[in-house]
């Protein structure tokens, strides 16, 4: 099977004053894979995906998505292109209902299909809620739900955008063990219809889900490979454990 590059960066950098948060990164993600992005705290993971999503502008380098240069494309247009970003800190609309939260995503996605009706929004929102298992909570105020459910809502909002690339920024943070287990099943299910880029600290989750792992350290790619390669990599161990 020929692997198709979905998104790639060339020399991507972002400097904050003297700090090189992301430094000259060449990165490629293949269509259909689950890619994990790991690294110690402050390695530049969130900055890197923020560059991909267009939340911040790069200092240098370029980003290509589906063969087109999107380096200067504003964030909201990248979302329409198919890059969905879920926030590290749960960023839902707490005062709106669960349904309205997802309906906003659905509405955004449906603008790509001219001639869609208002009832399509509801249908699409229900479908996304069903996939994460929140269908029976659609009338609740999002902010009153348990934290784990709010994270699922965040993912549902990402799903309803019909992404080609779904970026999940530390999705299991703050979840209980049983919630993490069902979350992993969900990510695998999502991967059947979208490419997933996962930032994660929880190593068992990473090892279980990822097809490929990219390790970031000091803003640079330290290593890249299959879970077993990364586990055996001495440089990665050194970066994490501070020995070597």
């Amino acid at each position: 099977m020929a692997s198709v590059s979905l998104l790639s960066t060339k020399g991507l950098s972002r400097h904050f004053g003297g700090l090189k948060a992301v430094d000259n990164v060449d990165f490629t993600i293949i269509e259909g894979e689950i890619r994990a992005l790991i690294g110690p705290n402050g390695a530049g993971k969130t900055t890197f995906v923020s560059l991909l999503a267009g939340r911040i502008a790069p200092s240098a380098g370029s980003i290509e998505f589906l063969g087109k240069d999107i380096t200067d494309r504003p964030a909201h247009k990248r979302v329409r292109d198919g890059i969905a970003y879920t926030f590290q800190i749960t960023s839902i609309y707490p005062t709106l209902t669960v349904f309205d939260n997802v309906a906003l995503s659905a509405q955004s996605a449906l603008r790509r299909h001219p001639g869609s009706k208002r009832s399509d929004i509801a249908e699409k929102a229900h479908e996304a809620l069903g996939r994460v298992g929140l269908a029976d909570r659609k009338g609740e105020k999002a902010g009153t739900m348990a934290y784990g459910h709010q994270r699922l809502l965040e993912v549902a909002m990402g799903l309803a955008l019909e992404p080609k690339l779904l970026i999940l920024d530390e999705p299991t943070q703050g979840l209980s063990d049983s919630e993490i287990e069902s979350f992993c099943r969900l990510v695998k299910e999502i991967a059947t219809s979208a490419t997933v880029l996962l930032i994660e600290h929880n190593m068992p989750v990473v090892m279980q889900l990822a097809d490929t792992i990219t390790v970031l350290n000091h803003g640079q790619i330290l290593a890249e490979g299959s879970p077993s390669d990364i586990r055996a990599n001495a440089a990665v161990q050194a970066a994490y454990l501070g020995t070597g």
Partner: protein
Amino acid sequence: MRVIALHVGVLAALFLVQFVLPDYHHLALTRVMLLAIYAMGYNMLFGYTGLLSLGHAMFFAAGLYVAGMTAYYTDLGVPLAFLIGICCGAALSLVIGVIALRTTGVAFMIVTMMFGQVAYLTITYFTDYTRGEEGLTMPTSARSFDLLGLHVDLTNAVQRYNLALGLLALTLLVIFVVVRGPIGRVLIAIRENETRTLMLGFDTFRMKLGALVLSGTISAMAGAAYGLMFAYVGSTFATIQYSIEALLFTLLGGAGTVLGPLLGSILMFYMIDITSEYTQAYLLVTGVALVVLVLFFPKGILGTIRERWLPWLP
């Protein structure tokens, strides 16, 4: 269904009440309805989009002055003057929006306030044409007009009342359709969390600009109608008090509710009206009432009712 019934009911009540009101209150309510339109325009931006403007009097005054001066200096007639007033309000809000929406939060308040002051000072600067605080009184020729075979006499209190009511109904309909539809959902989303809304793929700047233009245009329509119906335009309408009044009406009735500004306008008007009969310190009474409101009912009257009892209230 009950939502539509409620709004139609409110309009019907306003229609029927004119047959029982004494002259004084009849006139007062005409004024209040026009001010309510202004406040409803304000609420579009503040209540639904979450942008607090302190310069909205400039849009009201733009409608007021452009319509009034067109009627005063030209013989284009009242309907055309009214339309020109609205169009200038729309154009002004577009220009102001493009500049002011580069800021958010407190900076947006300050920028809009400064533009509001610029508008006020511009009006007083050209005193030769605007007559400044003394203002312009509309000539007799601008007190009546013929439109579509109907003769409308603006000195006739009954016709004035129903014209104001018609404009109020139109505004209510427009706002109702906008905020209950997909656009309203996005505006509320911007109010609640703009970054998230941008990351859902919405061009938040354009949405905010659209809301500001709609808001400014409605405010300008209220101003144009006010000047033409009551035959007077003056620079006091462009002062910051009028900007703040729209904010207070909206806060009192309930920001982000369709009927809140209307209720707030009526209550505030009568609160000042009644207390000023008893004391010269009527503004103190109003001030205390507002402090109590903000402390205990920060969501305003209808906002509180919606939160506690009627979650379906738009």
